[in-house]
């Protein structure tokens, strides 16, 4: 879905709502939540999250539920299960756990023809210089999903600090570690969030977020690396064998190993929500993330970004 089309749809929706709303003011403050009350919303609309993996299928977004439940210290917010142990006017410090969602790309990954080029790798110095028979032409090796080891879901736990610098400006920092030792590494997130409510359109709220995700080399390597556990199937025809004089399968496979390294992936997010009534809201969201080099250099990644966009309406069942 093209972003301009989504924006046009959103503007049409809000203009229509503005004309039919009789200037009713609705409480649009979503930064506060009622303690002890289960908040359940459903978003309905059109959107997708792109999949950067080679042959990866984009993740469609049509119907998305949202749950929040906060107590004085304990909270659950869309997959984050946390406990706040320090809170003052500006700072909130919490311990939390959640499922690492890096594997969501792999669960929708069905590569068919992923080509690794041993010639290109040679140019990058991956092939041993003491091999006089280093190939000079491209050899295609298929990565078959059946032969790539299955990536597992990791459960992360860590700390989060929220800094509410003002009513409009807040910062969030997170440092997480996988507690079930799937990748034995860390990941972090830092973002700045700015909320804006135009005075001329009372029911409209706008949110912009600027931040970055950091992934340790262990995490990047687990999800985006290629090594012994990933059996790279390939077929060389007789011509290839004659030209390149390569018949050592292990060597060729080994040449195409990829070791991931720590990555910083910056992102920008824009969100605009227009309250049509107390329970209904039209909203538009777009999130662009530029993948760090440790991820995008992987042979199984062919896009250097992810783009998540959504336009639709949401209904909150409790408010």
């Amino acid at each position, binding site marked *: 879905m093209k972003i301009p089309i989504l924006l046009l749809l959103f503007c049409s929706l809000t203009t229509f709502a503005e004309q039919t709303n009789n200037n009713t003011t609705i409480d649009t403050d979503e930064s506060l939540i009622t303690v002890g009350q289960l908040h359940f919303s459903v978003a309905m609309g059109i959107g997708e999250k792109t999949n950067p993996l080679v042959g990866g299928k984009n993740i469609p977004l049509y119907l998305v539920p949202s749950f929040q439940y906060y107590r004085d210290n304990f909270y659950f917010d869309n997959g984050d299960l946390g406990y706040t142990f320090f809170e003052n006017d500006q700072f909130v410090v919490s311990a939390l756990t959640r499922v690492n969602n890096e594997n969501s790309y792999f669960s929708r990954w069905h590569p068919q023809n992923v080509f690794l080029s041993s010639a290109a790798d040679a140019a990058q110095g991956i092939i041993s210089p003491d091999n006089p028979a280093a190939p000079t032409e491209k050899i295609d090796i298929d990565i078959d999903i059946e032969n790539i080891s299955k990536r597992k879901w990791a459960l992360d736990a860590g700390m989060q600090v929220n800094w509410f610098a003002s009513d409009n400006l807040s910062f969030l920092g997170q440092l997480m570690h996988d507690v079930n030792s799937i990748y034995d590494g860390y990941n972090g997130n830092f973002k700045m969030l700015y909320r804006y409510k135009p005075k001329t359109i009372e029911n409209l709220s706008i949110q912009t*977020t600027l931040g970055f995700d950091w992934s340790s080399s262990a995490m990047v390597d687990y999800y985006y690396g290629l090594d012994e556990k990933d059996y790279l199937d390939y077929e060389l025809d007789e011509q290839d064998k004659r030209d390149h004089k390569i018949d050592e399968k292990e060597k060729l496979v080994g040449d195409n190993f990829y070791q991931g390294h720590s990555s910083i992936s910056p992102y920008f997010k824009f969100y605009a929500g227009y309250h049509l009534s107390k329970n209904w809201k039209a909203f538009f969201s777009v999130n662009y993330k530029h993948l760090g080099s440790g991820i995008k250099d992987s042979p199984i990644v062919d896009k250097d970004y992810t783009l998540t966009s959504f336009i639709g309406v949401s209904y909150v069942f409790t408010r």
Partner: protein
Amino acid sequence: MYLHVKWIIIISFLSITASPANANIINTKLSFFSIKPLTCVVQKIGDTCQLMATVRWKADIPANLCLVQDETKIYCWKNKKMGTQVIPIELKDTTNFTLIDDGNTVFASQKVNINAIQPTKTRRRLRSAWSIF
């Protein structure tokens, strides 16, 4: 089906009658309009309040008027100069009641407020709205 809940309903007997000034009378043909009680108290916000509301109005000339709650007509009077009726009402939020005629002209309106014994406690959300996108 009515939920049998143990709501505590406190009827405010103070200044119950809404005078033309506080009843926001729009048309001069209506000289009096009131709803009692003006406040319903529940245990906590979100609870449903059930109450018997007494509605009174008086007009200069006979009229067909209806009492409306959230765009739904809950009681109508035909060709009356005045009306008095006790009507069962359910509320979840502070609600505006209006008295309208056949042509949907609003003659008067009055809010019935909901108050909670347990004050609503809020805290700051630690994730932003729809951050999952």
